[in-house]
Structures are given as structure tokens and as C-alpha cells.
């Protein structure tokens, strides 16, 4: 083999691998689009959180862990609840309510409390999700109905999505070594049920619904109340809408 042939061979080989990869990606994209068209009306699932209604009982955390087989240890959460204590000097003390995994008994130890409230957190199912943007193999993707999911059979466990998520909503599932996070209980909502956390909330602080449907309780909430999203400056366009959200919450 002379030099020229060798160089041509190497170049062709490289291009063959690259084009194979591109072809497979395009093909898969086309299949997904075709599937989406067959599912009928377009939906955009989202969640509302009524901050003033949350009593910090942690039922949602327990329900989520049970429903979705989330590891019980207090380092892995698809949803969690934060308790904010705003003190008279404007300083903020925050604790996480880990569904009874950790007891907060210091409520009255803190002095000079101005006010206190709870904020449930979960994946924001961003319309512009940085996690899906950075996933090197497309294991994190957006469904046609606006939910961000992880394909655990495709995820290579690089952890880049955890770095890219501004909300700390992801963790690596120890059993599978793959990224995991809230799916809005996709397996339930596709059957017309509410997500587990919404189902168990005793005060209806969590409101689930389809943003495309005028009859949805979430659309009604958005019509009646001012809502906010977390970290709007990052342009992730979150789909978890908070009412009565305090400015100190990040």
C-alpha cells in the first residue's frame, strides 16, 4: 500500500464510522416523530406548587420513593421538600425534609424567626433542558408531551447531566449506575392517573395538569395566581410553576 492509498483508507474509514453514527441518530429521530404523531392530541404536562399550602409533612417524598423505587438512603431524591426559616436579620436557614428520613426538631431552637415556609422541589422538566443538551448519547430526552426522561438502557453513567442541571434534581442510581430523576410518574400519567406525590399531598399543594388543556387544574391555577419558576435567568424554561414563591428560594 503506498502513502496515498493509506491516507485515503484511513480517511474513508473515519468517515464511514461517523456517517454510520449520524445515520442511526437520524433514523431514531424519525421513528420518535412518527410515534408522536400516532398518539393523538398534543399534551404538555407540568406541575404547579402552591407554596403556602405545603405543610412539610414529607408524604410526597415517601410516596415518590415507594412508587419509583428510589433508594431509601437520604442522598437520592426525585423530589424533596425544603424548609426555609427567614430570620429578623434577613438571614436564611434551610433544611431538607427528607420524608421522615431525617427529623427536624430544632424549630424552636432558632431564635428571632420572622417567618417560615416549605418549598417542594423536583425536576423542572424544562422546555429547554440543559441535561438533555449535554447528554453525549441522547439517553436524556424530551418526550412529545414535554417530559424529560432518562433511558437507563442507553445512559453511560458519565454524570454530565448532573453537572448541567441547575436544580440538583438528578442523582446516579447506585444499582444501575445510570442517571435518574423525576419522570412526573410517566407510567401513571399515561394511564390518566396523577403523579404519586400529587396523589398523596394532604393539602393539594401540588397541582398536576396539561398546559394545553383549558380544563386542567394547572391552567386554572396559573390563571388565578401569579406564578414563578426557579432560576429563570438561566433560560431553561422550567415547567414547575410556584405560587407565593419567596425571592430567597433558589
Amino acid at each position, binding site marked *: 500500500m503506498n502513502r496515498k492509498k493509506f491516507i485515503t483508507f*484511513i480517511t474513508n474509514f473515519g468517515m464511514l464510522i461517523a456517517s454510520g453514527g449520524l445515520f442511526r441518530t437520524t433514523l431514531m429521530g424519525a421513528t420518535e416523530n412518527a410515534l408522536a404523531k400516532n398518539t393523538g392530541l398534543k399534551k404538555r404536562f407540568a406541575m404547579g406548587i402552591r407554596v403556602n399550602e405545603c405543610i412539610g409533612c414529607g408524604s410526597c417524598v415517601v410516596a415518590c420513593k415507594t412508587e419509583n423505587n428510589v433508594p431509601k438512603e437520604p442522598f437520592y431524591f426525585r423530589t424533596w421538600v425544603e424548609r426555609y426559616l427567614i430570620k429578623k436579620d434577613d438571614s436564611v436557614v434551610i433544611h431538607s425534609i*427528607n420524608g421522615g428520613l431525617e427529623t427536624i426538631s430544632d424549630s424552636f431552637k432558632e431564635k428571632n424567626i420572622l417567618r417560615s415556609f416549605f418549598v417542594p422541589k423536583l425536576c423542572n422538566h424544562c422546555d429547554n433542558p440543559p441535561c438533555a443538551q449535554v447528554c453525549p*448519547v441522547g439517553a436524556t430526552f424530551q418526550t412529545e408531551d414535554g417530559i424529560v426522561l432518562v433511558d437507563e438502557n442507553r445512559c453511560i453513567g458519565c454524570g454530565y447531566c*448532573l453537572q448541567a442541571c441547575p436544580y*440538583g434534581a438528578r442523582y446516579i442510581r447506585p444499582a444501575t449506575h*445510570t442517571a435518574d430523576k423525576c419522570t412526573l410518574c410517566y407510567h401513571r400519567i399515561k394511564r390518566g392517573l396523577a403523579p404519586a406525590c400529587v396523589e398523596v399531598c394532604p393539602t393539594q399543594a401540588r397541582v398536576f395538569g396539561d398546559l394545553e388543556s383549558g380544563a386542567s387544574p394547572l391552567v386554572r391555577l396559573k390563571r388565578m395566581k401569579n406564578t414563578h419558576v426557579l432560576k429563570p435567568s438561566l433560560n431553561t424554561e422550567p415547567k414547575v410553576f410556584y405560587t407565593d414563591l419567596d425571592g430567597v428560594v433558589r
Partner: protein
Amino acid sequence: MNIETSTGLAALLKQVTGYIYPNEIEIQWSILIVVYPYITGLVAGAFILASLVKVFNVKEVLPTYRLSLLTALSFLIVAPLPLLFHLGHPLRSFEIFLTPNLSSAMAMFAFVYAWYLMVVLLLEIWFEYRTDLIRWSEKEKFPTNWFYKVISLFSTDTSQKAVTFDKKAIQAITIIGIPSAFILHGYVGFIFGSIKANPWWSSVLMPIVFLFSAIVSGIALVLILYMIITPSRGEPLDMKCLDKVASFLLYAIIIDFSLEVLDFIHRLYESEESIKILSDMVMNRLFLSLVVMQILLGMLLPLGVLILIKISKFNDELRKLLYFVSAILIQIGIFSTRWNVVFGGQMFSKSFRGLTTYKLEILGTDGLLSALILLILPFVILAILLKILPPWGRRLDNLDEKEALAG
């Protein structure tokens, strides 16, 4: 669920200060991800030093030319390993080639890497060594001669025309190689710099800072290798070469330092939402690795020494000693830089209200031992490459030359 992991994380929980999101307790990118940009930086830096000879015609550094290329190759071969070992599913890594997500910076790694290895380094080394390979294949005994025949790809043409073509090809490859080296390491910087959720990483300067720190570390590494290998072969060090390499090292450090100072001042002056937690982190978590190791020992001290050598007239022996010590300090400094980037970006909570900490494991795929093995491996590969492709010509040639001189 691994009980050890659980206990480990529970112990870490006690060291958390302020409030962090509950999923943030575990640091995801370990020491292996520190090793990765460190190694790719050395590749890019060593290649830039090599290109000084061919593109910018800096004749003084010629003795380091082949050594730089082989150094770059040995480190490039190891570069993907820390990434691979770090993956939760290393066996799925080929998915990056098969179904790359084109919007992901990380997915581009495979292409950047393949391009750099195949089109730049291997080709340049092949053209550089081609005539030598032919010569060695003729002179060596079986089976070594066949080995050289195979890696010369059965090329036999040593005519003047072919040699001229080799030179032209090398020039062309180096010209492509410089932007490629920039892309290789600038891209690694982009992986961090493009994460908008992370104010410690998110900066347009990140790829450029990575690049110049890469050049600094690569030049310093070749300087160290040259200073160790040459005397061990019983040959004198070329002081002109050393001085020139050290000059380029000094210029690169000045640019790198200026960029880092600019980044620091810019952050401090803008004083964004994250400034409090980042200052807290620098003072309480990264003080030793950032202020002491990276800035004082790894940057200011060698910078001062190299400037002192420039303005004073030290004798050869003292200069050698100071160059060597500076280059070692620079390696420590740049490794600390990578450490501070990787861990700094993960120790503060994205709630900007608390800090977690990193506990270095000794054993395990993510531990210190793996990192050390991956840092030593390129030197083993380099030793083998130096044996196969000696930059100084084979002993056989030297004997021939001696015979010719004697004759």
C-alpha cells in the same frame, strides 16, 4: 445499594456546611476527571512545542522535537482511559460513536480525539520517521527488521524527492496540527465552560485558560524529560535548547497567569449571586490546592525564578537546576489547577448556600491508585516508544557514524 457507599456518604454529611440540595452530597466527577484534562493538556502542550520547530522554524529547540511528538502520542493514547474508567457503563462508551448527541460537547470527544490521533500525531510521526524506519528495516536482524517494515507500511523510497515530500507533509500536518491541538484542549475547557448552571465553570475564558495552561504544562514536561533522558544517555544537555524552551515556557506562563488574573478580577468585580459561596469555598475548601499549590507554588514561584534567570547571568549548572525545579513546580501547579476546576465546580451547592466536600478514595476504579497508574502509564508507553523510535537515531547508526569517522 452498596453499604460502604451509604456509610461513606453519611460520614460526608457531617462535613457539609450550610444547605446543599440533598442529591448533591455525592461528588460525581472524581480524581480521574482531574487526570483527564491534565493529560490532554500535556498532549496539546507537547505538540505546540514540537510545532515551534517545524512551523515557526525555531532551530534551537530541535533536540526536543521528536521527543515532544512521542510524548504527545504516549499521553494521547492514555487520555481516554480516565474517562472510560469513570463511566458507570464503560462498555456502552461506543454509543458516543454510534449515536452521538450532536448538541453535546462531550459527544464530540470521540471525533476530536480520533482526528487528533489519526490525522495529526500518527501521520506526523510516520512522515518524520519514515526514512529512519526504512533504514532500520534494512539494518536490523529478523524479526525486528520486519517490525520496521510493517510500521513503515512497506515504504521503500528514500530518494531526495520522497524526503522532500516528507518534509512538506510534516509542515502541512503541523499547520493543521496547531489548530487541532487548540481544538483538543480548548474543547476540554469548553466541556466545563459551557455549563451555565455552574458559575465556577461557566466562563468564556475557560477554553483559553485551559489552552494556555496546557501549553505551559506540556512545555514543562518535555523540558523535564529532556533533562532526565539526555544525561542518562551520557550526552551533554544543549544549553541553547534549554534556554529557548525555558523562554517559551516563561512567555506561556505570563499569558496563562494574565488570563487567570483577568478571570479572577472579572469575577470579583462583577460580584454575581454566587460570589459569596465561591469565596467561602476558596477560603475553606480549596485554600491549600488553589492559593498555595496552584498560585503560589505552581505559578508565582516558577514565574519569578524564570524571570530571575532571564535578567541575571547564572552559570549553566545553576540554570539547569532552576529550570528543572521550576518545571516540576509547574507540573504540581497545573495538576492543582485541574483539581481546583473539577472539584471547585462540585463542592458548592447550586443553591449557592452550602458546601460539600470530597473524600479521596485510595483503592477502587475512582481512587488515587487508579489515578497514579494512569499518570505513570504514559511514561511506560513513552519508554517503549523511545526504544522503538529513538529520537536520537539507533545505536546502530551511531556505530556506523563512528566507524565512518574512524575510517
